[in-house]
């Protein structure tokens, strides 16, 4: 077998294993949460008999290990269970929410990843001079300010004062793409500002590291321009660390957007999760946790595989 195929298969198997482990952790975590769904549905005045009936109906009286495997079996068949609080199928409800979250993450990524890499290259080109310092300063400032604050500041200045874009990022199926983009413009800007610094700093550091190599000197002595040296000779050798940070940030765009979704009242996964944690709706929390874990593991696996593929020694063995 080609060694690279073997490595990739290994990563895939490892990813699956990790996902199973994550599912067990999520299940165990939700088990030890304080509170009781039946109690929260029926209220403080419920009789013990009514509580017991409801528990039996919801399947809460079965031993946890058996419940875990029932749940896992369902998940493998695409059945995420039904919500305890509104009796709706979780997969259906969440599908729409996940779509919205991915829509927002996609546009934020489309803008932030190329921008971050370009700024990183620019910072390397002018290392130690004012463009480098300006880029570093601005991106570090934007990552240091809490995202809700950036959100409100943008709402105040851009939406309220300049009357550009909308303050509330509500989207629905009836809207055209243009209307949707107009609605999510502000959250996309906030997310971009939040993830830019990480990726840009890593690009800069990884390329500066490569710039110490002898082959960069060779390229310079060929009379190539600085930017060509960086883009053609340094960047291809710095892909692995850059991809890793890019993927971590993409994962953050999907998993970590709770605050931004709340600020802009965006109907995404984050809000969905927060709502149901408050209601002690364990199946929804478990399903959300599992999806988040899957996104995280998948993106990191892609980063791993891209790193492997970007290594010519592995791609073209002797």
């Amino acid at each position: 077998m080609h060694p690279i195929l073997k490595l990739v298969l290994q990563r895939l198997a490892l990813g699956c294993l990790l996902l199973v482990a994550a599912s067990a952790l999520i299940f165990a975590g939700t088990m030890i949460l304080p509170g009781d769904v039946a109690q929260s549905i029926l209220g403080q005045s419920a009789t013990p008999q009514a509580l017991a009936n409801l528990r039996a109906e919801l399947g809460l009286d079965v031993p946890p290990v058996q419940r875990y495997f029932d749940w896992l079996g369902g998940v493998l068949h695409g059945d995420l269970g039904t919500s305890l609080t509104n009796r709706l199928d979780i997969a259906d409800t969440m599908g729409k929410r996940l779509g919205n979250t991915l829509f927002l993450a996609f546009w934020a990524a489309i803008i932030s990843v190329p921008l971050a890499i370009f700024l990183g290259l620019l910072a390397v080109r002018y290392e130690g001079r004012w463009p480098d310092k300006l880029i570093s300063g601005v991106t570090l400032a934007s990552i240091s300010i809490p995202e809700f604050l950036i959100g409100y500041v943008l709402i105040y200045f851009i939406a309220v004062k300049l009357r550009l874009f909308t303050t509330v990022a509500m989207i629905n199926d009836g809207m055209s793409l243009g209307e949707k983009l107009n609605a999510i413009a502000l959250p996309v800007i906030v997310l971009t500002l939040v993830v830019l610094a990480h990726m840009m700093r890593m690009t800069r550091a990884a390329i500066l590291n490569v710039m110490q190599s002898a082959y960069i000197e060779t390229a310079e002595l060929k009379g190539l321009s600085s930017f060509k040296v960086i883009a053609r000779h340094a960047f291809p050798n710095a892909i692995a660390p850059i991809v890793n940070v890019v993927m971590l940030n993409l994962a953050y765009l999907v998993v970590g957007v709770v605050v931004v979704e709340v600020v802009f009242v965006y109907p995404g996964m984050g809000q969905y999760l927060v709502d149901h944690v408050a209601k002690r709706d364990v199946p929804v929390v478990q399903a959300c946790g599992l999806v988040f874990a899957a996104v995280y593991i998948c993106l990191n696996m892609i980063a791993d595989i891209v790193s492997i593929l970007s290594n010519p020694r592995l791609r073209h063995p002797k």
Partner: protein
Amino acid sequence: MGNMLLDVRGLQIGATIHPPGEKSRDIEIVKGVSFTLEKGRVLGLIGESGAGKSTIGLSSMAYGRGGVRITGGEVHVNGRDILKLSPRGLRAVRGAEVTYVAQSAAAAFNPAKKLMEQVTEAAVHHGRCSREEAEKRAVVLFKKLGLPNPETFGNRYPHQVSGGQLQRAMTAMALCPEPDLVVFDEPTTALDVTTQIDVLAAIKDAIRDTGVAALYITHDLAVVAQVSDEIMVLRHGEMVEHGETDQIINRPAKEYTKALVSVRSIEHQEKKPAAPVLTVNGITARYRGTNFDVLSDVNVSLAPGQTLAIVGESGSGKSTLARVITGLLPPSAGKIDFAGRTLSPTLAGRSRDDLRELQMIYQMADVAMNPRQTVGTIIGRPLEFYFGLKGEAKRRRIQELLDQIEMGAGFIDRYPAELSGGQKQRVCIARALAAKPKLIICDEVTSALDPLVADGILKLLLDLQKAEDVAYLFITHDLATVKAIADSIAVMFKGRVVRYGTKTEVLTPPFDDYTDLLLGSVPEMRLGWLEDVLSSRRMESAGN
């Protein structure tokens, strides 16, 4: 001026250094060097490390490595001062009129790109020819430089070809844009002698066929004598002597040049064989996870107070043998007898005395010492560990050791970074001696040093051997070193000992094929040596 290709006048080069724990300061690297080079001539720049030869070579492209700056003088290439050019004008010179061949081609090629793309890049970038023409030219150059499968060689990645091939590919890369001048910066220093001779011949042919001028930088006078028309000897950033190759080699005028020419002045009388202190019996070893033996059935022995030299190319198993003897790599078969007892195959199974009596000195003294420890701490560590010395007693013993390695009391509180390469190696020797060993394994201890410095280290080792009656297992690829210090020699090839005996036995004909090749490949300091060797080889292969 006329047809002067390169005209360097009063070149001054400086740098800012940042020694640890001290203020940064400016130093002068090159102090007013002038020379000219006509079209199609080859000038050898020779000197020890720190003489400024690489720096001068790179200045012909107006390039300074790291913090190095050209602070004064003029560098005329094709009649114009390139130090006055704009960055854009300079880029038009680099890679087009002047090209560069680096010491380590393995590091100088971009690992992520195919060789062809890199070889043709400069020619295409400067618009000297189209991509197709450049690729055609590259194939011609690959053929000329004797690379295997020249048609498809360029499709490979740097890691897929050997070091010697990469060095030739780098020469092709430098010649592809049809430059007027090529700077060769120690192009064969990192290669084995048997590979060096092929690369040297390939470079020489390519220079002759293309009529390009060259600056050939090296610390090996025997090598530069083979390729250059004239030689400039440099020391401490100043010119010592500049003349035709024949004059420099055969009639050097300056004392320093004479010392360089007559280096390896050590005479060492071979000692009589005696009862061995170390016997290696039928050692076979392989690394974990591999399926071939790095060493197979190695048998050698070594008498107290004598030197056994292990010679061979890289990959022949020399260093692996050292790892087996020290216990770092347990052998799969065979045993090692040392000082009347059989050593445990693993490091964990050895007693403290086993460890103490068997010491090592490494090739890279820099990385063999903790940069955060002073010389006193470094030498004092084995004294504490093996003999429990403390305080004044320890300090006195460190002082004795420093005297033995001919370094004064002032060094005890210095850090490794403040020492020269030769001094660092001396400290490593003192650290090994501190344990009062019966055997010291010396792994290429002089390979990274300049010839004159290396000579000093070898003399020191011989003196110490006489005084302490310590045996040396001396691993090296340098046959001149072997001739200087060995009592017996083992020639290794592909994990086997192909020739073994006293120095006289091994170095007296008739030779086996490999020893013959190895001995014949050591550059000799006379004009026309390269041609003689190559023609005798051609005759042999024609005769077969």
